[in-house]
């Protein structure tokens, strides 16, 4: 059984930092949330020391262990450490591979397209980026059908790994919809995801860590302006 204090270093807006927090909530593990105050312009000593390789949030501190980095790796660590709590990864190896596959797709392919959309200049660039984002959502609607097997979450009856991986993006997805006057997840186009999104956001393990949509939209405008102003690559997000 695990022992020692648990802390998560992150920001209120970061979809990646939300993931370990949801996982800890699912396991009913108390933790301290340490807010990184100025991620974009001035990273704290704590962050630079605990994640020297990537210099990104989230970082998990657990007892005497060295810090753990990369949100999905942290979630798996939480699942394996507090193994007597509700399971996060599915138990079947093929289902686990499927969940990992889609989580990797979201982080490696889909999220970069969402970022491109955020900073795209001009109609052509926006159209291309939007098409990629929409394609990803369509794939996830199909994946939801297959993974949920008629239940409410990708993980089945309860929130699982892929719910956390995708659900953590919902706040930013709503911001993208708002800024582009588009509907990415709705009853007509993606009925499965539309219901799932509501279920996910209102879940006890999620609702206190999901950022408020309006606050996020305001924050997004500041971030985009800063990124363009500072000439930073989208990679820094």
């Amino acid at each position, binding site marked *: 059984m695990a022992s020692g204090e648990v802390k998560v270093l992150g920001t209120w807006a970061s979809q990646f930092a939300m993931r370990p927090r949801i996982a800890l909530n699912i396991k009913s593990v108390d933790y301290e949330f340490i807010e990184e105050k100025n991620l974009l312009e001035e990273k704290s000593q704590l962050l630079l020391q605990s994640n020297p390789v990537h210099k990104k949030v989230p970082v998990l501190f657990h007892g005497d262990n*060295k810090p*753990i*980095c*990369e949100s999905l790796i942290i979630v798996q*660590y939480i699942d394996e450490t507090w193994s007597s709590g509700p399971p996060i990864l599915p138990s079947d190896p*093929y289902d*686990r*591979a499927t969940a990992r596959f889609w989580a990797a*797709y979201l982080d490696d392919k889909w999220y970069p397209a969402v970022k491109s959309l955020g900073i795209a200049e001009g109609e052509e660039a926006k159209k291309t980026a939007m098409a990629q984002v929409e394609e990803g959502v369509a794939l996830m609607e199909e994946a939801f059908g297959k993974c949920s097997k008629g239940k409410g979450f990708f993980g089945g009856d309860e929130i699982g790994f892929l719910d956390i991986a995708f659900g953590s993006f919902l706040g930013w997805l709503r911001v993208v919809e708002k800024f582009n006057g588009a509907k990415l997840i709705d009853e007509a186009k993606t009925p499965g995801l539309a219901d799932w999104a509501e279920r996910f956001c209102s879940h006890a393990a999620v609702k206190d860590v999901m950022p408020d949509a309006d606050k996020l939209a305001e924050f997004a405008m500041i971030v985009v302006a800063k990124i363009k102003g500072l000439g930073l690559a989208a990679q820094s997000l």
Partner: protein
Amino acid sequence: MEGGVVLLDFWPSMFGMRVRIALAEKEIKYEYIEQDLRNKSDLLLQMNPVHKKIPVLVHNGKPICESLVQVQYIDEVWKNQAPLLPADPYKRATARFWADFVDKKMYDSGSRVWKTKGEEQEAAKKEFIGNLKLLEGELGDNLYFGGDGFGYVDVALVPFYCWFYAYEQCGNFSIEAECPKLIAWAKRCMQKESVAKSLADPEKVYGFLLQLKKAYGIE
């Protein structure tokens, strides 16, 4: 296609090599089907419609894509032999972190070494060596990244070793001079049959890279 294990692969792919090593470690018999990536087969497109890439592992007719997902799958299904991931959750997290680092950094920085020239190439070499030195630091004085035993990070990284000769030729530098401990580790891994059988011949890889450069219009 029913039953058994099939691997859709392309001989110089470092990602395919990871899966070959894992299958060999577990002594799993499988059918290897070479793919022509300039003329992708219906089978490949059907089995990996999202990325249309190799490697694709097919087990009992069901496809699994993405090399590290495949290696973990193999480790979990054939769990009674040659475990690749350690048992301890913290050590597992560390192994996953460094395998993920290899994925995020090695392929791109290696590619930039052969795709660029002049100042750009110098910067690419610096970045590439920098990444290798970080990995060397993580290895420390251990025999393998897995500690005393060959493991997940070793599987993730060692395929790149057969590309080092090609990178060195293109970039006119010596990786061994910069990272002797890492090369010693790679040679140690090559003593294992699973690795020696799975990695491509470095000369052949260089020949392939020269063809690639021509196709990309790079001198």
